[in-house]
């Protein structure tokens, strides 16, 4: 197994961040998780701009995007990623508490790889994160073309 790459979690709610991290931790995810608190920060991280201008080179193995975030929302980040040559191939999982059909349709239209309704049931939430988010991260099998960080 190659070196595990980072997982980026874009989530504005600290409690959700904690719950998500606890779930990832509980399942012994070895990847480093980068937490960003809004869409603008997520975009800066992905583009190595602003406060992330100095971060090490490399792209996350998977991006977990909350739908509703301050400044730039998840759908906008998704749209920008899928319009960018460099970022297009990173798997994106939309994390949301919304069951609204239009959000789901819009996410898939914009090219989301998965759409997870954050269930109230924590067990199911963990299962969802495990099934969808960790699939790419843990097995470290990014789609062809993804820039691999030097070993």
């Amino acid at each position: 197994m190659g070196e595990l790459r980072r997982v980026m979690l874009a989530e504005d709610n600290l409690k959700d961040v904690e719950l998500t991290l606890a779930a990832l931790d509980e399942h012994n995810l070895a990847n480093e998780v980068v937490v960003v608190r809004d869409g603008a920060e997520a975009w800066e991280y992905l583009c190595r701009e602003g406060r992330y201008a100095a971060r090490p080179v490399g792209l996350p193995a998977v991006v977990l995007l909350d739908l509703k975030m301050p400044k730039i929302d998840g759908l906008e980040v998704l749209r920008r990623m899928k319009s960018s040559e460099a970022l297009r191939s990173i798997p994106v999982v939309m994390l949301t508490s919304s069951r609204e059909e239009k959000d789901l349709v819009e996410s898939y239209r914009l090219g989301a790889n998965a759409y997870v309704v954050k269930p109230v049931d924590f067990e199911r939430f963990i299962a969802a994160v495990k099934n969808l988010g960790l699939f790419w991260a843990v097995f470290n099998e990014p789609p062809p073309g993804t820039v691999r960080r030097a070993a």
Partner: protein
Amino acid sequence: MKPSRTSIRRKLVTAMMLTSTTVLVLTGAALILYDVASSRRALVHSLTTRAEILAANSTAALAFDNPDDATRVLAALRSDPSTVMAALYDRHGQLFANYPSHRASTAPGSAPVRMGSWFEHSSVVVHRPVIEDGRTLGTVYLQSDLRALTGRLRVFTLVVLLAVVGSVGVAFALSTWLQRGIATPIGTLAEAARRVSEGKEHSVRANVVSDDELGLLAGAFNEMLGEIQQRDAALRGSEARLRQLNGDLERRVQLRTAELEASNRELEAFSYSVSHDLRAPLRHINGFADLLQRQSRANLDEKGRRYVETISESAKHMGALIDDLLSFSRMGRSEMQQASVNLERIVAEARATLSVDIAGREIVWQVSPLPEVPGDPAMLQLVFTNLLSNAIKYTRGRTPARIDVGATADEDEVVVYVRDNGAGFDMAYLDKLFGVFQRLHSAEEFEGTGIGLANVRRIVLRHGGRVWAEGKLDEGATFYVSLPKEVAGERQNREAA
């Protein structure tokens, strides 16, 4: 000049002229004919008289056979230039004497057989006997030309012609003057009619002052125009009012639509907000209660563990309530699909969906053949899943449980019933049965959020149908759903929903 006015004038003048000319010509012709006849009669009469005189004067000459005497007598005719020829014949019919004497050859050699007077070629002839004392001595023959007659006729005809021409001239002047009394008001009337028909100006009036039928016609015309003008004004008035009312109505509809759209948007934003924001804290309650249970279980006593479990359960229940409420709200707003729905298949699918709940239960199903109805397949699926789910839930504890599904139909609608032998309900609480979050059983007895039948009712109403139920406590319940055979508009459903 307007053609119509020319026409009526010309027609009137022509009619009058034709009449007067015909009368004049006929009168003139009659006069001439009469004159010709009387002149001829007079001519014959005078010639006969002359012949009688000649006869009287010639008796001696004939009796004594003295032709020279007779020739002298005849020569007296010289004084009348119109006498062309005269002759005396003896009693044997032989020419005795003639006039003019130097042109003897013109007289016939022997007396004509015919006696009396007659016209011949361009002359008139008299031939009569010379009688003395009852003895016929011979005959006298007198021929006169018609010079006098034709001369007189020429003059007379000329006079008549002059009279006719003069009369025609006077008649023309008279008719031209007289037709104005008719043609002018008609022209005025026609001009008014033309302006009305061309310009649609009903304020035009025909200015005709006349006490005859034309005046009456103009009066009626003006009155009619007045009536039209009045009605036109009334029509315009009501048209304007109608347009204004229409405009008002349209504005009101637009306003209402905008209001409705706004409130719909608000409702949508509200439900969106509920589904996001209300769910987040619940997720946290549930999530952290779960974490607490996992990580600090050892530090909690029995009571503490029960508290944490209760927190989890309550959070889950609230989550279910929120989900149901949102689905109920969506059911009222979402667009309806239109298809032919096979109710038998719908019921079969509902049973398949509920197979997990049936596991380990003894249920006697009796599903009669069901018809097809127009409607939204997904919504009707939800209706029957709800009804069957209820039947399964409330027959818990019955062995065996009986669930009957069947339908009756009349001309307009299909009534489907779902009957069970379950817990039933008290008919006194019938009105609460289909209300949102209304429950007739405690959560300990039968779980549920109280949204199922409210959803059933809303969907059926949107299809233009009705729902009702019959039941008896501890003896089971029957739920009825009526669905129209024809697609109903959404109108009444909206009203009801």
